[in-house]
């Protein structure tokens, strides 16, 4: 009992002093970069977790961030296109938040969206489409937070130097801090590749690994490279620019009509038509349906798409998207390998779960 009390006191002290987050990274892995204006503390992450799972984050109490980013689905929503709290459909599929701390760019096709703090404002205040629908209701939303006993405890701990911590800026900072902590590096493949546990991968997955990493056979690694199986990544002592110099590629997935013309939507340059971000393939077995428009229901469809050299012709299609000589067995092996990237521990890690499950659920 005494030990339990001591532990509780230690935890309380840790939160109060704004202790640094323990990343629990495997040896040798780079720590994520933390922006100077939003240092990461345990208290701030905890506040962000509460906000992330709070449906009062939406104008009608219908949705929270977690509605489109479910932990059990590697922080995606299982839908082809995300749906906002008023029923409006987003043109694109909800992206995974796993390892977002390492992502150089954050969305499907916006090269300028690089800060999580800034990105959080899009679902909160965006009107095309409406996601959480808080635009015009900001003060009312902050007043709701001020009126909640849990937040009256959490906000001052997260921002101890501020006399009035209930601001929209602090909400985005706390959300960003929480999202940065969602690091997934505990898949069977990680145990095999970096943990030396040969038995963690089946013979089929090992054959699939060779196809994935062979430029002569699959070449998947060209766009989904490195330990994050993604385009551009950044961390302490590491910057990897990704395919195309920025990690955006045209893979012949669609006819690329508005509003899904890729990077073109932001630059207006013809060369950017159809260029979309290569997301991480970690936990890809959990994040169906696939592609920016959710147009492929299964991994089998995705592999077939690449094996035939892309579904649609496009003048900007990446030169690497060419027909592949993959037998049915090769395709099964490749999918088995992709399944080995699933980090089951991430899907049930209490650090990223709904805190309101153990507190009193707030009024909806």
């Amino acid at each position: 009992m005494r030990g339990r009390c001591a532990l509780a006191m230690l935890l309380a002290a840790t939160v109060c002093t704004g202790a640094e987050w323990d990343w629990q990274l495997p040896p040798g892995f780079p720590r994520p970069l933390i922006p100077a204006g939003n240092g990461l503390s345990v208290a701030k992450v905890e506040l962000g977790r509460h906000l992330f799972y709070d449906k009062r984050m939406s104008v009608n109490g219908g949705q929270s961030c977690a509605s489109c980013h479910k932990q059990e689905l590697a922080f995606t929503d299982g839908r082809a296109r995300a749906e906002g709290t008023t029923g409006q459909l987003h043109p694109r599929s909800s992206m995974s938040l796993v390892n977002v701390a390492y992502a150089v760019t954050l969305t499907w096709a916006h090269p300028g969206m690089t800060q999580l703090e800034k990105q959080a404002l899009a679902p909160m205040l965006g009107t095309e489409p409406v996601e959480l629908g808080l635009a015009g209701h900001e003060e009312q939303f902050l007043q709701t937070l001020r009126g909640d006993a849990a937040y009256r405890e959490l906000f001052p701990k997260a921002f101890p130097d501020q006399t009035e911590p209930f601001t929209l800026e602090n909400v985005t900072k706390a959300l960003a801090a929480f999202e940065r902590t969602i690091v997934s590096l505990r898949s069977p493949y990680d145990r095999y590749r970096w943990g030396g546990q040969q038995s963690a991968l089946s013979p089929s997955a090992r054959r699939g690994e060779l196809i994935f990493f062979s430029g002569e056979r699959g070449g998947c690694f060209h766009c989904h490279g490195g330990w994050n199986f993604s385009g551009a990544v950044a961390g302490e002592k590491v910057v990897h620019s990704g395919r195309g110099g920025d990690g955006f590629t045209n893979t012949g997935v669609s006819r690329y009509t508005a509003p899904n013309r890729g990077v073109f939507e932001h630059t207006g340059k013809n060369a950017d038509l159809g260029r979309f971000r290569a997301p991480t393939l970690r936990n890809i077995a959990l994040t169906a349906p696939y592609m920016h428009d959710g147009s492929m229901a299964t991994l089998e469809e995705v592999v077939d798409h690449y094996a035939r050299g892309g579904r649609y012709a496009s003048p900007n299609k990446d030169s690497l998207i060419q027909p592949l000589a993959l037998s049915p067995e090769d395709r099964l092996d490749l999918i088995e390998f992709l399944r080995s990237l699933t980090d089951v521990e991430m899907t049930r890690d209490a650090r990223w779960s709904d805190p309101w499950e153990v507190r009193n659920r707030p009024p909806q």
Partner: protein
Amino acid sequence: MCNRVLLFFLLMTLGAAAQDSTPSVQITGGVTRPLTLTSGDLARMPRATLKASDHGVETVYEGVWVHEVLKRAGVPQGDQLRGKALAAYVLVHAQDGYQVVYSLAELDPSFTGNQVLLADTANGKPLFGERGRFQLVAPGDKAHARSVRMLTGLEVVQLRK
């Protein structure tokens, strides 16, 4: 007697199969001494280590400098690397058919400070999986394309006859 003969041939066959499956790097082409190098052979050669970043994951590779391997195969080095030899290159072969080229001068420490390692261990463990049993590590290259994984051979090709 018949059983003994059968057993003999069985053991011979198994032995040959085991030998064939031992991973190795072939040093072939315009060399005076073609070589087949296993990890055991590399362990008896001058060893070298280098620290490199594998997409941000710190990795210590150990192996043998490629110029040491080429020297053992009788490839001209240092002062001998003159004239026609300067128009020779090394065609690197990988298990999946991937190929890249280095010129001999690029691999010679008397010409350049950028040495290339024929690695067989990473962080103290034998290479495996997508890297194959052997891998080139070229820390002087900005891109990773010539750090050939699944390495199977170095073929010296003379352009000027």
